[in-house]
């Protein structure tokens, strides 16, 4: 059995109208029956009282002259009313005097009202009415009439049957009528519900509810619902179009990026190949220049004037420097070709090894090496040695003007990743050239002041990039410089950018 609150609106409306009709008819019918019964009873008592009064008057002499036959004759007039079941006259003492109807033995003497009051009692399907016989203040006896209520009950029964028939007809008519009326309510609601379900289940916003012919709240609801669907549909289409546009743009962009990357890689490779071959090919003529300059000094050194010897020394110095430059370039080019061989290595041991070499080279200089413990990281130790060699050589080189040089190597923690730094108290540089630091052949100092090829920091950056790391520097002119680098993906920015 479906619960009422879960039933469809159509069912609810149907039942409601049936219920209302039934209640109205039941109430009206009950009220009518109650009124009918009450008024029937009161008019019955009134009529019966009149009859009893007549009997009382007519039986007065019979009682006075002790003539029950006469009284029975009076009572026998009640034959005219078949509803009078029994009638009896009792004397003032309460003895049965005369009777009509049933066996006189069925009239209990003690039942007669001894008082002078008229009473009417409804007992089951009978009305029992007592009426005193009083003459000139003298209580002579009592008339008792028993009236069958079968007529009343058959009337009530007939009425109930009629009421049930009317009720059934009314409910039928009400249901038929409500079926027509509810079509204007439940049908739009059902359409609305079906559309809402379709939208919710299939996300199909092109559904529309058929507009109602009526101009009621339901019609407004349907119109609003349709309007809402139209707006959602439009927005949905916009979003879809935007998505497609975005996708096209994205694809174009990716295509362009990969194209550029490929171009760049090709150029890079070409450049590396070119650099490598140039550097390699430059070595042979350099060696020849140096070799012949040396032969010249060795073979004919005694014949040459001092000035010529000095020139030859300058030639040889030039070739040596160029040789260094070619070596550096070859290293740089080689780095572009090979992938780092990663393993876990302690950075401290690498730094100590590099610093040991540099200490030997800088004997006589006052350098304060402050080497703090460094972490173990995943890296190519050979390449990291190149990094530290470059950074520490730079520190040694640019602190040369200082009477006491301080070189500080340490590690700080940033975003859970170690950041290694190399700090010196050298000449430093202006931060406005910071972006040129790591370019190939970019030099911030004159070669006369500080020797160098301008390839070192470019090499360092390339190595760190190969490790998915980064490098940056902070410096101030004449106040020293500090180089920071990271390894392993975290693109940490400058600490005080």
């Amino acid at each position: 059995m479906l619960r009422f609150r879960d039933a469809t609106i159509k069912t609810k409306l149907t039942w409601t109208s049936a219920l209302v009709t039934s209640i109205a008819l039941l109430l009206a019918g009950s009220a009518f029956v109650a009124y009918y019964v009450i008024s029937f009873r009161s008019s019955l008592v009134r009529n019966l009282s009149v009859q009893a009064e007549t009997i009382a008057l007519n039986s007065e002499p019979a009682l006075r002259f002790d003539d029950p036959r006469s009284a029975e004759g009076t009572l026998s007039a009640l034959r005219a009313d078949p509803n009078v079941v029994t009638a009896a006259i009792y004397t003032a003492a309460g003895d049965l005097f005369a009777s009509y109807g049933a066996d006189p033995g069925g009239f209990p003497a003690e039942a007669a009202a001894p008082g002078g009051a008229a009473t009417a009692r409804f007992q089951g399907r009978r009305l029992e009415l007592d009426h005193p016989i009083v003459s000139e203040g003298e209580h002579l006896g009592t008339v008792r009439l028993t009236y069958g209520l079968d007529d009343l009950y058959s009337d009530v029964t007939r009425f109930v049957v009629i009421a049930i028939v009317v009720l059934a007809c009314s409910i039928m008519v009400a249901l038929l009528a409500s079926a027509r009326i509810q079509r204007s309510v439940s049908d739009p609601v059902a359409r609305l519900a079906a559309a809402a379900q379709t939208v919710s289940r299939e996300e199909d916003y092109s559904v529309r509810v058929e507009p109602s012919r009526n101009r009621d709240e339901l019609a407004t609801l349907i119109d609003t619902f349709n309007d809402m669907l139209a707006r959602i549909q439009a927005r949905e289409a916009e979003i879809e179009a935007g998505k497609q546009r975005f996708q096209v743009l994205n694809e174009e962009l990716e295509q362009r990026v990969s194209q550029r990357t490929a171009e760049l890689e090709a150029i890079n490779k070409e450049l590396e190949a070119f650099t490598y071959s140039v550097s390699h090919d430059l070595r042979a003529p350099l060696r020849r220049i140096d070799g012949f300059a040396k032969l010249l000094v060795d073979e004919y050194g005694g014949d040459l004037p001092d000035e010529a010897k000095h020139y030859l020394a300058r030639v040889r110095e030039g070739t040596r420097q160029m040789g260094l430059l070619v070596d550096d370039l070859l290293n740089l080019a080689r780095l572009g070709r090979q992938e780092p061989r990663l393993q876990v290595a302690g950075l401290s041991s690498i730094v100590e090894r590099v610093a040991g070499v540099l200490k030997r080279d800088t004997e006589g200089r006052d350098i304060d090496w402050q080497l703090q413990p460094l972490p173990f990281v995943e890296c190519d130790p050979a390449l990291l040695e190149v990094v530290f060699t470059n950074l520490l050589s730079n520190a040694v080189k640019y602190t040369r003007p200082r009477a006491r040089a301080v070189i500080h190597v340490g590690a700080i923690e940033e975003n859970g990743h170690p950041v290694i730094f190399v700090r010196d108290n050298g000449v430093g540089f202006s931060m406005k050239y910071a972006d040129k630091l790591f370019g190939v052949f970019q030099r911030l100092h004159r070669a006369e002041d500080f020797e160098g090829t301008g390839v070192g920091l470019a090499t360092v950056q390339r190595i760190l990039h190969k490790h998915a790391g980064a490098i940056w520097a902070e410096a101030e002119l004449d106040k020293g410089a500090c180089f920071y680098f990271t390894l392993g993906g975290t693109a940490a920015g400058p600490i005080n950018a």
Partner: protein
Amino acid sequence: MRVVCLAWALVYVPLHVWAQRSPAAEEVEAAYLYQFGRYVDWPADRQDNSDTFFICVLGTDPFGATLDETVAGRVIGGGQVAVRRIAGPDESQGCRILFVSPSEESRMPEVLKALEGTGVLTVGRGPTFTRQGGMIAFTFEGRKVRFVVNLAATDAEALTLSSQLLRVAGRVEK
């Protein structure tokens, strides 16, 4: 002789029965005497110098104090009911109801004749009484006191007996 025998039977047998009446019969008769007053209308032109409703007893009074007790304080037609005992019809002036005692048996026709035209309701004992011209006679029906009415006599005196009374009456004679 046969007629005499019949007469004897008619007179003596009731008298014989009379002798065996229950004592309460007198009380019933006394009550009925008074009750008759309620169901009889006397002609309006009757000359009545008294407000008192007299019930008279002619001859030997069989009721004694019973009748006086019965009517004590009773009122009929606005008149106080009272009992008067008289010796002859000539004293019946003012009487409404006159009980002719069985003691007057011997001169009954004369007495009734004398009362004609006086407008008095005559009551007696035994069916002979009405046959002789009396108006109401007490009779017996088993042990029950009943009465018969002689309508010819009452009509002659212009007395109207209520139909209710006639219905109760044991026998009505025209």
